[in-house]
């Protein structure tokens, strides 16, 4: 009956309480969205692109990084990446944030490539030999990794998590033929994403409520600390289960029955700029191919 009540009221007619709850929800999401994912809101062409375009673009970019290995190809990739970052209006600082996570990996990759590649030695100390080929692969590998992270950051920074799952669902739709439950997976992903900020906020509130009762989440040895988490975890789990239950009920009450024949409020439709973007991608690949060849010929001549 509760759901029925919600259905018959139009937006402007919502009674004050419900209206307030809805408003509070959106305010909170806005506040919290920043802590999960890493969406950076801005008004740019890249933000407005269809998520499928961005997924494809990221894929094309990453493949190009690994398929074409030459100085000229990387120059072109750098130019294109710089142009896209510029167009996205997201500060470079945010793009580089993701690099922190792979710093150690980057260090190892460079070191291994530098010292373990056989070829013409440049210099030698103790058991390490640095070769010409080693330097080349190390630099190329570093560039690949860094660009890979920045490239995917462009996507996650300019696309909301929900939009991204929508894009994935649509892009992977053909897999339904081989019985992959694409819609269900996408739904699970978007619900999980939607719940992260809610649960974060809930954790924050529970921590405050328990801190007000003198709970201590910071000091003590490991065992004490784990024990101190109980007053936080019990209410959190209880609330998570209650919310999951409520959501399942609400979905069922609205007639949800899985992906078959389901329509979207905002269906993904390609606009002109999306088609243009695909064209740009194609041009990029072609250019990459030729630029790479030039490098190849140039190297032949040099030899």
């Amino acid at each position, binding site marked *: 009956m509760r759901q029925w009540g919600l259905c018959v009221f139009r937006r402007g007619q919502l009674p004050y309480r419900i209206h*307030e709850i809805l*408003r*509070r929800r959106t*305010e909170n999401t*806005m*506040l919290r*969205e*920043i802590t999960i994912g890493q969406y*950076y*809101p801005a008004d740019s062409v890249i933000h407005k692109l269809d998520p499928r375009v961005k997924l494809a673009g990221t894929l094309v970019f990453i493949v190009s990084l690994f398929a074409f290995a030459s100085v000229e190809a990387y120059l072109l990739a750098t130019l294109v990446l710089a142009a896209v970052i510029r167009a996205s209006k997201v500060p470079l600082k945010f793009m580089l944030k993701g690099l922190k996570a792979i710093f150690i990996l980057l260090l190892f990759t460079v070191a291994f490539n530098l010292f373990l590649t056989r070829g013409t030695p440049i210099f030698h100390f103790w058991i390490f030999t640095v070769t010409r080929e080693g330097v080349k692969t190390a630099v190329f590998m570093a560039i690949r990794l860094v660009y890979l992270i920045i490239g995917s950051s462009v996507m996650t920074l300019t696309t909301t998590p929900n939009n991204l799952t929508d894009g994935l669902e649509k892009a992977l739709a053909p897999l339904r033929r081989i019985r992959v439950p694409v819609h269900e997976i996408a739904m699970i992903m978007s619900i999980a994403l939607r719940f992260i900020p809610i649960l974060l906020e*809930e954790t924050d*509130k*529970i921590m*405050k*409520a*328990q*801190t*007000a*009762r*003198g*709970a*201590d989440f910071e000091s003590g040895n490991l065992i004490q600390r784990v024990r101190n988490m*109980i*007053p936080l975890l*019990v*209410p959190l789990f*209880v*609330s998570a289960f*209650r919310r999951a239950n409520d959501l399942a009920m609400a979905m069922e009450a609205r007639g949800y029955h899985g992906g078959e024949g389901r329509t979207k409020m905002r269906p993904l439709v390609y606009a002109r700029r999306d088609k243009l973007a695909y064209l740009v991608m194609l041009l990029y690949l072609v250019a990459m191919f030729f630029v790479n060849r030039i490098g190849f010929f140039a190297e032949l001549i040099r030899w």
Partner: protein
Amino acid sequence: MSIRLEHLNYIYSAGTAFERKALDDICLEFPDGQFVGMIGHTGSGKSTLIQHLNGLLKPTSGRVLYNGEDIFAEGFDLRRLRSKVGLVFQYPEHQLFETDVFTDVCFGPKNLGLSKEETEARALAALQQVGLKEKYYKVSPFELSGGQKRRAAIAGILAMEPEVLVLDEPTAGLDPKGRDDILDQVAKLHRERKITVVLVSHSMEDIARYVERIIVMNHGSVMFDDVPREVFRHYLELEQVGLAAPQVTYLVNELREKGWDISTDATTVEEAVQAILRALG
């Protein structure tokens, strides 16, 4: 044991695209033993404000003084402060976690490092003060009704024997009887234990009957701070910020407009009855 707020500012998500000013230059004083009502619509900053009273939130700028001491000064014991300034949040579900109600209420005093006997004595006293029946003491807190959960949550704070009790919307989601019961209980506590009570609500009706002072919050600043009667004189301005005066205020004002010789000071039904009887002669 007064609390004083000096030029308090609080900004959410400072330095990001989501920056939002929640409190704007708040100066307030909560003297001993006062029963204060705080009111404001959603997002007016009242919940943010009360979290400064026991140091859960640190102001972006400004000071919080407890008995004249800056609570964010080096070496100030915030945990001791939290036992003196008890804050009950809106949802009891956020704090109830033990296997039974009694053990749950013991959590606060236990954290103060009290002996087992003292802890249990305080828990028992607190449970009696909130009027929770003895048959519920050994029941899981998750099996209680909404109103009983609220009582258990309030008892959990009372057991720490605070000098200031701050209640964030203690009546949200309760039926009229449950609401009156809780508020009567709080008023009784205020009378008997002489503690300071700060009652946050968005219902003027609730607040008008009990408090001696009302603070109206709007967009992160204090809009009115006065005795109820004076605050309700501004009932038209209150409406503009999404609040309303008690219904009786409208009634007496309308009667006056109709040419009755009636005082518009009434804030509760009883006072309105008296005023109308007087006007009728």
